[in-house]
């Protein structure tokens, strides 16, 4: 197992380099970074040239990339459009987004798996059809629609929550945005769990467990659920990465100053450092989450052994 983890960590290096290079190139294609610095007005050609050589933008792209990566490895992610260090920006943005992601994941696990188990065990009954229809609606409606409706109803009309989250973004204020962020994944988790439970419920070992005279709840929790959760955990694991980067829409709607918000600002101002820096960290998180899923896989299913 140890060797496997090390091998996987080493495999992350080329993926990391490839991903960052790709992002670096894409941001470069987006347009002239200097143009954004002068605000609305056209830049003075002399100033632009000076800025260009100051930032090293007159050098070839591969050289720019090499310089950037050199800085990254010494912990210098550059400065953002407002003169703040990107690392400082990360320091405030990531804790908020992590909090939001945790809220979303907890919703996925508790609501998604519970609904999945209930519907899986009652396949074809009204509860099952009802939940199935509901998940279909949730999946087909885009997050920004769900988010805006929730904000409008709960925040503006009924005043249950405040429509925008404060800068500090405490956990309490993130519950509704977290639910919005989780909604689509939650529906997928429900469907995945349902199928898995329904399939395993007919398996021979569940029949054996019943024939052993085990109480119903023990059959479900010890025998059925453990086997059924393997694909669900894979999904939730990969979803951690997706939720952290994909919170842009939700963070915009509820004005949460997290990773999505900063990324959006970075793209808007064509600030290479911010975008590449944040995305780099997101790539690492995504890779680590995947590794965690694979390790967890072996823990849950003893038939899988990594050498």
């Amino acid at each position: 197992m140890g060797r496997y983890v090390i091998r996987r960590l080493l495999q992350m290096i080329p993926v990391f380099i490839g991903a960052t290079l790709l992002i670096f190139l894409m941001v470069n294609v987006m347009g002239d970074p200097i143009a954004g610095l002068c605000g609305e007005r056209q830049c003075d050609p002399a100033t632009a040239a000076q800025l260009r050589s100051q930032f090293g933008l007159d050098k070839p792209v591969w050289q720019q990339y090499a310089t950037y990566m050199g800085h990254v490895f010494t912990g210098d992610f550059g400065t953002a459009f407002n003169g703040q260090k990107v690392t400082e920006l990360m320091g405030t943005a990531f804790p908020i987004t992590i909090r939001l992601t945790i809220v979303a994941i907890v919703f996925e696990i508790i609501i998604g798996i519970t609904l999945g188990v209930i519907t899986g065990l009652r396949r074809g009954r009204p509860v099952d059809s009802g939940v199935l229809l509901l998940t279909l609606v949730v999946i087909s409606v885009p997050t920004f629609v769900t988010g805006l409706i929730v904000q409008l109803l709960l925040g503006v009309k009924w005043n249950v929550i405040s429509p925008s989250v404060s800068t500090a973004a405490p956990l309490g204020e993130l519950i509704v945005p977290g639910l919005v962020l989780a909604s689509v994944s939650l529906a997928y988790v429900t469907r995945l769990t349902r199928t898995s439970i329904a399939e395993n419920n007919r398996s021979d070992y569940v029949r054996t467990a019943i024939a052993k005279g085990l109480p119903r709840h023990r059959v479900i929790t010890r025998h059925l659920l453990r086997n059924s959760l393997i694909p669900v955990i894979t999904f939730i694991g990969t979803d951690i990465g997706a939720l952290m980067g994909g919170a842009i829409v939700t963070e915009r709607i509820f004005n949460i100053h997290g990773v999505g918000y900063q990324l959006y600002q970075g793209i808007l101002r064509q600030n290479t450092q911010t975008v590449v820096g944040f995305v780099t960290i997101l790539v690492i998180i995504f890779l680590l989450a995947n590794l965690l899923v694979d390790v967890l896989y072996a823990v849950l299913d003893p038939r899988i052994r990594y050498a």
Partner: protein
Amino acid sequence: MTIIEETSSVPTPRSGDSDTTPLLEVRDLHVEFHTRDGVAKAVNGVNYSVSSGETLAVLGESGSGKSVTAQAIMGILDMPPGSIPQGQILYRGQDMLTMSYEERRKIRGRKIAMIFQDALSSLNPVLSVGYQLGEMYRVHEGLSRKAAKAKAIELMERVNIPAAKARVNDYPHQFSGGMRQRIMIAMALALEPDLIIADEPTTALDVTVQAQVMDLLADLQREFNMGLILITHDLGVVADVADKIAVMYAGRIVETAPVHELYKRPAHPYTRGLLDSIPRLDQKGQELYAIKGLPPNLLKIPAGCAFNPRCPKAQDICRTDVPVLDPVTEQDGTELPGRGSACHFWKETIHG
């Protein structure tokens, strides 16, 4: 509908149990499955009984209803689509079909245990065998995790698994087929039940291991004086261990007999066909007999005797009247205890 006239007149059990009520008695059991294409009648009025220390072999092709009957006894039928429209399953005189879920659960595993055919899929792949064996003690006897594991090791030793102590934490996939089936047997034996139902326990094993597993099962049965229902389609396995045989076809019992009588003189054309299709060394080089046709579709069981389309002796009456399970007698009318045949022409079959 088939009826065994006198269930208590079957041969005396090996250990001479004096109890008059049998351990388990199935009376006129019907099981149906409601499918999209119609109602599949899997079991149509089965009667049989088992006493302590006795082995009943239930013989039949796939789809003859032998496994479904066993599942109905265990209470592990999928309901729906399955349903039991009529019949009784008496355990020590009490009808299990009218018991509450909890009452039945307490009988399962503790009083009546089951051994399944495919041990690999019947054992939970993600739990260690020690855990799965120990679970019996933890749930039914409230033992601690540690005490249960010790008991599990004991059990594994009893079914002759080498290095039981070292292997107790292994998972099912790490065992060979024969060892896995031993674990299944150990699990059924854990609480020393009164009755064990073995559903084709050796089908998935190779021949040498088959004999070992059957011997083990027979030894343990004698040791604990348990009743045993052995479901199989292997006539060779039956001859060695069974006391009496019930042959099933299309959800009915077509013939019952003490084990050796059946082999000597079958009283039903279907049983005769089964016996004739066993390869024999002294008939080397000749063509092997096979029963013509296919087992009937349970959605459309033929009118009259269900076997009539495949029967070499079928007459007009076979296509109209359902034969009942009549007691079989000698030519002079002497009763043959425990024998019955559901054939209009049993006399010709046995004496002809």
